[in-house]
């Protein structure tokens, strides 16, 4: 860690003149000098991270794509008048770029643009909700076991290890198969898959933080364990969790799409991207461009999240 360059401030001994005018002049110059050197803006970790992130072109573009996709999904009814669920059978499998159907139509003549926009609601939900859910639960478990080294911590982390012993997608499939099809169940399944790795990240970050002297100082002031956890440990664990979780959104979308692909996802005819990809699978030789549209959007979103996550990691990396 590099030491911040801190200017020397001048005190009263500077420019001790003989006449009152000399002393006043010295005082004025002293105040000027000091003011110039104390005007550095205070910057919190998050402000600094944001500023560094903003200088990363790739990260900004990626974050912009994510934002566009989210806005497109939210404002779908404003962006297209076409119905995502009902199509004209006569218009089936129009190619990408055909008049009135920017992204073509599917095998039932439904407008693909409308389906992609409305489908984005389900797919993005399936990406965000499990990630946020797992981040909250995993952080709680990780911080708890990182602070409480005894039986509680051991039991929690060994349980996590056991869930971690399953390949991620297999666990999601097994949970999904047990719960039955549906978007809610998909979200639950993906959340369960993500809790153990988040808990591991949070636990190791917590272990690193609790041995630091500022935590001892907080305990020395009489603060309860809960208060120390909330005010001292958590703010210093969150950055690790956030970087890790930001990389999970894309994975969550892919797993959710995989589950719908296997028939365990949201119920048809709801336009979820994974389900759309599966139902257009047979059309890949007839209308290849249309058939890859849903897959392309899963890919695009996932790439954007991965790039944004990398940029975020870099922006946080200069350890403050």
């Amino acid at each position: 860690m590099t030491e911040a360059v801190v200017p020397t401030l001048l005190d009263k001994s500077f420019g001790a003149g003989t006449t009152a005018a000399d002393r006043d002049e010295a005082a004025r110059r002293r105040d000027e000098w000091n003011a110039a050197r104390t005007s550095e803006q205070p910057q919190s970790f998050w402000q600094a991270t944001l500023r560094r992130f903003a200088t990363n072109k790739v990260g900004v573009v990626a974050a912009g794509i994510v934002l566009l996709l989210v806005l497109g999904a939210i404002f779908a009814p404003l962006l297209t008048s076409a119905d995502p669920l009902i199509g004209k059978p006569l218009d089936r499998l129009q190619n990408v770029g055909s008049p009135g159907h920017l992204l073509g139509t599917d095998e039932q003549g439904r407008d693909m643009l409308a389906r992609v926009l409305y489908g984005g609601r389900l797919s993005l939900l399936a990406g965000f909700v499990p990630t946020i859910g797992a981040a909250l639960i995993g952080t709680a478990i990780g911080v708890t076991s990182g602070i409480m080294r005894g039986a509680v911590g051991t039991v929690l982390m060994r349980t996590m290890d056991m869930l971690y012993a399953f390949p991620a997608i297999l666990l999601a499939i097994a949970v999904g198969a047990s719960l039955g099809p549906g978007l809610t169940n998909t979200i639950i399944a993906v959340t369960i898959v993500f809790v153990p790795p988040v808990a591991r990240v949070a636990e190791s970050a917590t272990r690193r933080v609790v041995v630091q002297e500022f935590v001892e100082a907080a305990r020395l002031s009489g603060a309860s364990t809960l208060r120390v956890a909330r005010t001292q440990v958590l703010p210093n664990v969150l950055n690790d969790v956030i970087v890790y979780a930001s990389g999970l959104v894309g994975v969550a979308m892919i797993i959710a799409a995989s589950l719908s692909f296997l028939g365990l996802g949201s119920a048809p005819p709801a336009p979820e991207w994974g389900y759309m990809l599966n139902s257009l699978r047979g059309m890949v030789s007839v209308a290849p461009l249309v058939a890859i549209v849903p897959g392309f959007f899963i890919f695009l979103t996932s790439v954007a999240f991965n790039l944004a996550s990398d940029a975020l990691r870099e922006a946080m990396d200069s350890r403050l």
Partner: protein
Amino acid sequence: MLRVAVLRISMAVPILFGVSVIVFLLMNVLPGSAEASLVSDDMSAAERQAIRDELGLNDPLPLRYLHWLGDALQGNLGYSAQRRRDVSDLLMQAWGNTAVLALVSAVFGISLGLWLGYVAGTRRGTLIDRLTGVLSLSGLSIPSFFLAIILLAVFAGWLRLLPSGGANLDSGLLMALRSLVLPVLSGSLITMAITARVTRASIVDVAGADFVETLRAKGLSEWEVRRHILRNAISPVLTTSGVQIGALLGGSVLVETIFRWPGMGLLVFTAISARDLLVVQGATLVIAVTFVLLNLVVDLLQAWIDPRVRGAVS
């Protein structure tokens, strides 16, 4: 080393136990549990009770678990009413096919990823480094089943170069290899991507270490220096390759489904469609146990190669 081995193996036992508990609970506690696939709505209450009694479903949960575990340890994973076969027979048949596919994918993905990561890490900032970056990012972000569909459309549909599905493992080496190409490519891209990323990062990390400077100062040839770098950089790569093989085993459900590869994955897919949960349960258990054992092998390998890991145990 022997002590490390014993310790690692003894640590795997509780994990295996936990895995079996989780698999059992998944299928017996959650709403879509196994009994639901046997009991149908039009049965009378008495009939349902009879089935439940016969299956021992009225026993307390821990007792049922012990029964199930005892059966499972003897190779009895239940009977698939839909397929009219013992679940273990079905799994045995499929296991070999999945093993072949996963093994070839792992070897292909990990060695290609290692090579790309090594080249990228030692020639930072060059074109090949940036290309590797793009390739590994794409590999991380593309769903394997999407890649599979594209590959199928191009190589089987359009170019007609390769078969569109099935496993021709018994009809000669050439046919076997031809049937393996597309499933291996679509399954192993993510393995390659992650291995390349980790290898590159690890190489960059080690290449900046002081000892590398010392080796150069001692007058070692560049070739020898790189050998030292690789040896020191391999440990994190090994750690992830365990996880990678797991991802391949899990991902097999998707890849095998698309290429109609008669392995565990395809078995799971058809069982899900038919709500044949005993097969899902059995396959999940077998894949998870395989995964734990593979990770154990990777751990031991790592302890053998890297003295730091060996020391960390004690």
